């Protein structure tokens, strides 16, 4: 039984060519009330994905381009003195939106990074003892340039943990690229998109995802995966308890998107690399990338024992 989110996924696939798995994961992260970290080179369609997503879901979308001099207030908002009313007035920053594209997050200073990530986690902004709630749903797509580029501040592990999934778009395959070249920029089509759903429904979907059943047998599997990441000699840093919970949450969303009311090991396996790769640090002799490490760990744990 296809889930009610399937039209959204189909529509996104129509705009962003040749990236079905990434689109799937992005929608999944949104439904799981998580955020997405895209690690990729510029020009791979990150912005297109964010824009298309918000357009299809009928969500408001904003974008922050991070540079070294972007300050927390530039993102979160600030109190300013309103001369007319003689009061301090809170001015919402770009974070007050439903879909936020945080471009090149690792180009800005840790201070600003931390401010954004805190807002992401708590879904609220506190300034001068006043708490401002962020809208529901709130979904961040952060992009990160690969580390080897100059002028970056790599996100610390504790911060990376806040992203539910990380993915990389990569180059499109030949068919998609040819289509891209012949049909021109797909971004122009975003304007014509009719929203396939509405924010209220998205919240309802999110509530449904929370109801997806996780059986003991499955929890045991997730536990063993997490445990293995902590004890494997390939791993310097394993999954935190938050990482384990993220894995379950993502699996729930995946199960719901596949039209089920219970999580199967295949759900866990489908999301595991995306959920775990940015949370793991491989040992010096281990695989080079987090993706390889995650794949290896996955292939070392039995589904049932």
């Amino acid at each position: 039984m296809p889930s009610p989110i399937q039209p959204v996924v189909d529509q996104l696939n129509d705009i962003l060519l040749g990236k079905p798995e990434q689109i799937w994961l992005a929608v999944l992260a949104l439904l799981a009330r998580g955020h997405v970290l895209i690690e990729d080179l510029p020009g791979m369609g990150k912005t297109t994905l964010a824009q298309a997503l918000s357009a299809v879901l009928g969500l408001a979308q904003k974008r922050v381009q991070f540079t070294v001099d972007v300050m927390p207030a530039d993102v979160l908002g600030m109190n300013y003195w309103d001369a007319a009313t003689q009061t301090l007035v809170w001015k919402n920053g770009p974070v007050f939106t439903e879909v936020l594209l945080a471009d090149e997050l690792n180009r800005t200073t840790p201070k600003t990074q931390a401010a954004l990530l805190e807002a992401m986690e708590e879904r609220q902004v506190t300034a001068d003892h006043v708490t401002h709630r962020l809208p529901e749903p709130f979904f961040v797509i952060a992009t990160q340039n690969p580390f080897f580029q100059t002028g970056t501040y790599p996100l610390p592990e504790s911060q990376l943990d806040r992203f539910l999934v990380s993915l990389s778009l990569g180059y499109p395959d030949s068919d998609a690229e040819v289509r891209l070249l012949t049909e021109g920029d797909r971004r122009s089509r975003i304007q014509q998109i009719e929203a396939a759903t509405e924010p209220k429904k998205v919240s309802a979907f999110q509530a449904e995802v929370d109801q997806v059943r996780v059986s003991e047998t499955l929890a045991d599997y997730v536990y063993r995966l997490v445990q293995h990441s902590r004890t494997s000699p390939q791993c310097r840093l394993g999954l935190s308890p938050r990482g384990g919970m993220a894995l379950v949450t993502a699996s729930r969303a995946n199960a719901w998107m596949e039209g089920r009311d219970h999580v199967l090991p295949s759900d866990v396996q489908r999301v595991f690399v995306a959920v775990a790769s940015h949370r793991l640090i491989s040992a010096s002799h281990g695989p080079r990338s987090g993706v390889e490490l995650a794949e290896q760990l996955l292939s070392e744990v039995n589904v049932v024992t």
Partner: protein
Amino acid sequence: MMLSGIKVQSLMALQVVLLLPLWRLFPIWVALISCAAMLDRLLVTQGMKKTSSSFWKVGWVLIASIALVLEYQSLLLIEPWVALLMLMYASKSLELNQTRDAFQILHLSYIVMMAQFLYDQSMLAALYALLGIALTTLVSVQVNSARVIRPQALIGRGAKILALAFPAFLVLFLFLPRLPPLWAVPQPSMSAKTGLSDRLSMGSIGRLIEDDTLALRVAFDGLTPPLATRYIRAYTLTEFDGRTWQIDQAAKRLSRRWQAAEDQSLGYQLILEPNGLNVLPYLEYLDGVYPLGVQRLSDDRLRARAPFNQRAQFSLNYRETREVASSLTSTERERLTAIDPKNHPRLVSWIEAQAMDRQSPGERIRTLRRFFLEGEFRYSLTPPRALGDPVDDFLFVTRSGFCEHFASAMAAMARLSDLPARVVTGYQGGRYNEMGGYVEFRQYDAHAWVEIWIEGEGWRRVDPTTFVSPERINEGLQALSQLPGFQNANWAWYRRLDGVLAAEFVLTLTAIQHYWDQRVLNFDRDDQVNLVRWFSPELDASDTVHIALGALIVLFVVIAFFESLRGANRRAVSTAALDRLAILRGARWIEPRASLLATQPIDRLLTMIPSGPASNLLESIIADYQAVYYAGREISRREFRLRIVRWQWLAIRLRLRRLASPLFFMTSEARMR
């Protein structure tokens, strides 16, 4: 690998248990020499002695061999061979160092266990062998294990092995064709029990009567005939020398006639205990065909080709009246009336006084009968000794004796009265065993009576004992226990049965023994055929082989299947893993190349099976699996296991069908698509 002390000790214990019933039957030195070897090894194990020297081992072998040669001197009997087996079995303990030595002992154990059946095939022996088998299994479980196994675990494992072997045993017993021996084994020189002999001189049956061992049993197909008519005939004694009656060694063999039993005749089964004699006793009168391997002689004796050294069972027919006989030739008549009158002067004068020659044969018999009835004869088991001619003394002086005196004397009287007469020995009466539904005849039921030839009628049975002591015949021997002679006689059997309870106990025991002999020991080819016919009337003897083979193959497949299941299960911890393996196994029957890594979810299997009815089935069982373990559907584990078994069964059937008919499968598969 060196054997630990506990293993050596358990092997020794096993050896002793298996050798015990054989030691009982063999000269004491066999037991002593075997014990010496085992004791030596035991002392080494206990650390009380250093390892035995080669000198001691060679010496032991020499002593054993010399003793064997001196004792038996011949290898034609089976005893020296069994003794050799026992000695070799015991001697292995001298060389019991490594695990492979232990295996040799264990394998020999089964042969030694079978050796006791050469001597004893009773139920008790079988029970003892069962104990031996169980013990051997337990010891071999222990020997095969590196650790010391707890007794409960040991018994559990042993029981499981035996339980697995049981169906195979059943199939082999029921269906494996009973083959004649491939080579002749010299019969054990069994000391046959005292029984009837082919001669009768006064006093010999007196010994018999005190013997309470079982002689034979008769189970009737219909109603059991009354006590008084149950005469079991064994020997016909025609040669009389004035003191001893003997059989006619020159009795002619009658040609076998194919003669169907008459309608009114009664079939019965006769189970003969081994007695070392070559005569087959039968219930008078014989009707129809007599068994193969048995000859019918002119004196109404059934002679077997070989002595009965083993319990044997025969199917015979009985009729109430004798068939009308032809007349005697003059030479025959002469032989059957042959008697030397000089031996019995008093009898001769008495007969002359009766003016017998003017009487008809019937009248003569009545005269003789009257003599016994009026002569104050007494039935006694302890008759006084005869001083002169035993016949004269008995008839005119002591007038006290038992059946053999009466029969012997009456036959002599008949011959002197010019009536052809002979003595018949056998059994009479017997005791009905209600539990077993058969009549048992013990050696004390031995009896002797007279047959007198009457022209135009044939042989007429005359039992002089009935003239004097009708109780002996009408109420069985037990009634006679009131007689004075019985009080002193060695009347062991009945005295032991004082209480009714004890009597019933013995009867029950013999009934069980009867059942064992009938159903187990004598389970032969005919029974096998009857068994397979019970399944289907068209089957015959040759099908038992096929059934045996088929059943064994099925059995092995089933055991191998569950064993492989068990092997895989040993690695699995949870029921989820077990069920997963079971589903995977089923999938492998359909598609042998299907394989699933333990790290792959079970629904991955679906990609490995070609679509069709099998994959639909697989899909549903996987859906069930996921529902149980992931969706939390309430479903009983039993029900789910049942579904998995059904799935495996379907998978096997699909596979077999494909193997059996590739063409059919392909077309049907194409049709499915």
